[in-house]
């Protein structure tokens, strides 16, 4: 399944076949295995929901696939590159919306995006930065220090930063977390647009209803193991119920 390059900036390349494949992934934190023997295959262009209770390993899995942390066991290839040996190549093609929003408190949203743009080699593209901020609803706060923004607005900034990267594969970790209802709709729209553009999106969330509506497939993690995989519409109701807080 071929994928046309995303619009304009040429940072991404055509990706064929599987966007993400993993075999036997394991990751421990001291005495605890956060991921155990996770194997999966995600075709290009799909939108996948990653469900599971708090502490089930969703964040860890996303971070391993995004090369933020290393796997202790197993292999994975994301966007056709090995996460262990070709980290830089993987990073050029993926974007991670993490629990920590990767911003500088003392700087403004515009400045934060400009910094990211400068490392992406696109520091001259000022109009695009403003347009992105407008798209996520931060246009009128673009020049206020992030320390003055609410949690929801910081999430929107993080979203803008992720969109800036024009990634072929996106990992969104609890993106609905601090957002308000307009923010929910924004995120739904963004995911829809990403899908239309041919990107692969993996969304970790425990909002099962939303996931069922938005996503093609779902994966359920429990205590670090992949316990269920199938069409998103059929994800079992108890996939995100209760459990220990992480």
């Amino acid at each position, binding site marked *: 399944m071929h994928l046309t390059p995303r619009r304009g900036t040429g940072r991404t390349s055509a990706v064929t076949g599987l966007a993400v494949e993993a075999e036997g992934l394991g990751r421990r934190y001291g005495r605890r295995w956060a991921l155990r023997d996770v194997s999966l295959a995600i075709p290009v262009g799909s939108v996948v929901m990653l469900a599971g209770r708090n502490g089930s390993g969703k964040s860890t899995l996303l971070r391993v696939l*995004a*090369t*933020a*942390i*290393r796997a202790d066991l197993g292999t994975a290839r994301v966007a056709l590159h090995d996460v262990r040996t070709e*980290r*830089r190549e993987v*990073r*050029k093609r993926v*974007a*991670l919306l*993490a629990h*920590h*929003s*990767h*911003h*500088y*408190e*003392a*700087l403004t949203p515009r*400045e934060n995006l400009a*910094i*990211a743009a*400068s*490392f*992406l*080699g696109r*520091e001259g593209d000022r109009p695009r930065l403003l347009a992105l901020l407008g798209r996520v609803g931060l246009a009128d706060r673009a020049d206020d*220090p992030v320390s003055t923004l609410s949690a929801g607005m910081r999430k929107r900034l993080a979203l803008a*930063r992720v969109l800036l*990267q024009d990634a072929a594969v996106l990992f969104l970790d609890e993106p609905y977390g601090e957002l308000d209802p307009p923010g929910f709709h924004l995120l739904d729209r963004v995911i829809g647009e990403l899908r239309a553009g041919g990107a692969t999106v993996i969304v970790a969330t425990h909002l099962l209803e939303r996931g069922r509506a938005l996503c093609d497939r779902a994966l359920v993690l429990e205590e670090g193991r992949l316990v269920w995989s199938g069409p998103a519409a059929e994800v079992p109701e108890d996939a995100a119920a209760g459990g220990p807080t992480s």
Partner: protein
Amino acid sequence: MSALAAALRKDLLLQWRTRAQVVAIFVFGASALLLFSFAIGPHAAALRQHAAGFLWLALLLSSTLALAESFQSEMEHRALEGLLLLPADARALYYGKAIANALQLTLLGVALVPVMVVLYDAGTARLPALLGIIVLGSAGLSAPGTLYAAMTAQARARQTLLPLLLFPLVVPVLLAAVKATSLLILGDPMGQIRSWAVLLVSFNAIYWSLCGLLFERVVED
């Protein structure tokens, strides 16, 4: 724009935006100079003799605050990780931060000189040379200091760990900078400043390269 330029620009912007903290650190350094003079007592000759040592001690103590501060903003929301994932070259991020820290320490050092002149009656006419020594000493503190600041910002007991690790390491910098500054203040009949400057340059050459190589291991998982 190269990655190094982008990193340097980012760090200078961050420093400018948090410049109130630098003022506070300067006040800390100046207070230290004042307190050191109490350790000697109001003996003008003795104060003048030891002025160089106290200046560099004050700068060394201030550096622990400044260096720790430089990674506070990188770690609180994992901004550094965000940059590494773009991807940004870890080495460029190191050099940007280390250069910005060296500039900040130079500024602090230069600002403390008038305090030293007033409290210790210790001045020098050779201002360019003094600036050179301050630059070399600040760079020598910044190279390993930036690496250790990145490390300790992720550990417990960070305020104690940074000076604990840094101080023994920068003994050569302290020795050389104090001797050179002292010679500038008290006179250098045998022309020894050059040798101390060479020592500082060598330390800098070794540590700026070594720490640049090792930085990635410290910040990546």
